């Protein structure tokens, strides 16, 4: 399917789905759970643009998420900024830091890059813990100035709608990156960066675009988070579970296509919501970690790769 038609179709389905759920679903818990799952769709898609398409493993997803979160908290403390402005600021700040991370790839490749992103997250955490204006180690409260806008019954519904739009946008962006010429260039970098450079692929420019998009989307997902929880503290925002989830979801779904992170985020996200309600919050983290180890060992191509390989085997018997 051509890209404009696909985008139109996705936009239509997403818009219909959002309107129908907001109008039809009465259960407030549903919106909170759906928000969390959709947030993982954004994070997983964002991670995959750099990790799956370009082959640079980012362990610092929590850092970019936190950049969005704390941009919102900062603007809220400063001028009680409206949510749209916070989202724009969070996306912008995280994208800029992503750009910086892109320049880091000039010196650091492979494993060293991955360790550097982990270190970056920890440095940022230390700064936030020591920065009293955004709450420091105690955390920060957000007080929403007014009730939901007309047409919505609660703020939970508004946030759900915003996150659904962001998830659809991230998927469309990821699909565009994958199918454009840029996606081919990124795949060439993933397979062999030196060879790509030698064949005239503008590796630095592509990597910069990739890290900027990936970082910006993660910041965007974080920007609405303070409005969702109304209280944020560094331990929760920088939780390792964001990093693990945003790696596990693409790995489990399949990293070479935009649909893999979507599949992984839906499966793992919903499973975690169910486990959280029925068992406990710690067990759902255990599940994510265990599935990550299992998939990376047994089915490194993820569910998509596994089904594709089976399909191929059926078409062309050896």
């Amino acid at each position, binding site marked *: 399917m051509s890209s404009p038609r696909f985008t139109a179709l996705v936009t239509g389905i997403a818009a219909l789905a959002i309107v129908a759920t907001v109008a039809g679903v009465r259960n407030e818990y549903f919106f909170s759970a759906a928000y969390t799952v959709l947030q993982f769709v954004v994070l997983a898609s964002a991670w995959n643009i750099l990790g799956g398409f370009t*082959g640079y*493993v980012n*362990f610092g997803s929590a850092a970019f998420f936190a950049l969005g979160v704390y941009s919102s908290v900062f603007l809220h403390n400063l001028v009680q900024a409206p949510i749209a402005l916070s989202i724009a600021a969070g996306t912008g700040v995280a994208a800029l830091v992503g750009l910086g991370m892109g320049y*880091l790839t000039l*010196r*650091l490749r*492979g*494993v*060293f890059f*991955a*360790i*550097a992103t*982990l*270190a*970056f997250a*920890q*440095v940022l*955490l*230390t*700064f936030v*813990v*020591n920065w009293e204006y955004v709450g420091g*180690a105690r955390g920060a409260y957000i007080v929403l100035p007014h009730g939901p806008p007309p047409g919505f019954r609660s703020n939970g519904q508004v946030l759900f709608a915003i996150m659904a739009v962001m998830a659809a946008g991230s998927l469309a962006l990821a699909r565009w990156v994958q199918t454009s010429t840029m996606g081919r260039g990124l795949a060439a970098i993933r397979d062999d960066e030196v060879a790509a450079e030698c064949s005239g692929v503008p590796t630095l420019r592509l990597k910069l675009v990739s890290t900027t998009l990936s970082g910006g989307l993660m910041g965007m997902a974080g920007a609405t988070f303070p409005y969702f929880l109304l209280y944020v503290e560094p331990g929760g925002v920088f939780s*390792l*579970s964001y*990093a*693990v989830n945003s*790696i*596990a979801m693409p*790995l489990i779904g399949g990293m070479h296509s935009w649909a893999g992170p979507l599949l992984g985020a839906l499966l793992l996200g919903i499973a975690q919501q169910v486990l959280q309600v029925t068992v406990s919050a*710690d*067990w759902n*983290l*255990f599940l*994510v*970690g*265990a599935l*990550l*180890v299992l998939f*990376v*060992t*047994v089915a*490194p191509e993820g569910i998509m790769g596994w089904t594709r390989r089976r399909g191929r085997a059926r078409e062309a018997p050896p």
Partner: protein
Amino acid sequence: MTLIANALVSGLLLAGFYAAVSVGIAISFGMLDVVNIAHPAFIVLGSYLAYFASSWIGLDPIVTALVLSPAFFALGLVLYRLYHSSFERRGRERLRGLAFFFGILFVTEVALILAFGVDYRLVNTRYMDTTWRFGAFDLPLRLFVPFLVSLGMTLSLQAFLSRTFFGRAVLAVAQDELALQLMGVDPVRVKAIAFGISIATAGVAGALLIIIQPVQPSLGREYIGLVFAIPVLGGMGSIPGTLVGATILGVASSFTSTFFGPSWSPAVSFGLLLLALALRPEGLLGKAAR
């Protein structure tokens, strides 16, 4: 003046402990090229075992560490075999191996939380509250005993690697795996044993950790920056280099917590790691080409 002198002394004592924490990474990451990001999780596991041995049968953490080190060694052997058959043998999938260890780190941490909760655990030994004084210097045994154990462990590892036949085989595997194979040695076996040794050092480091400070399951990730910064600073896969790197980080973080407050000291290790990676990835004592 006294403040600076004491910061220096406790920095050096801390450096000894840091060497124990990171020498395993110098072996696994530096020599075997296995990016064991889960190393700190095994350190915390060692702390928990030392805690239980101490609270149930009153065993000193260091005795526990020595008794349990064969178990940690075996764990390392098994883990390396799994890693090798799933990732290394298939080639080029080093980044997936990284995700594998990241998952192990996370699973170990969550398993400890599920089993024992998020409370801080600590042990009490006779020497922990004693402090020797030499004029202006304080020498707390709580730091000095781990310092001695760690130095002993690190130096005997260095002697083992440079003097024995097997140790030289490990160094050879770090340089040229294929050549070693041509000499009739099985590099996988050599690497499995060396990896086992590196995990055994994590168990010992865990026992030292719980002597120095209370431990809770997610403490491990604070040590990720540290355990990688030290070998990278010291030039990967060199044990004397690890001692140098540990000294730099130990003194730097002791001065930071003395003059800026302890909440800033994690930034030091991770910040130095970032700087080292960005400016001189081959390390202070490392060779330029690799």
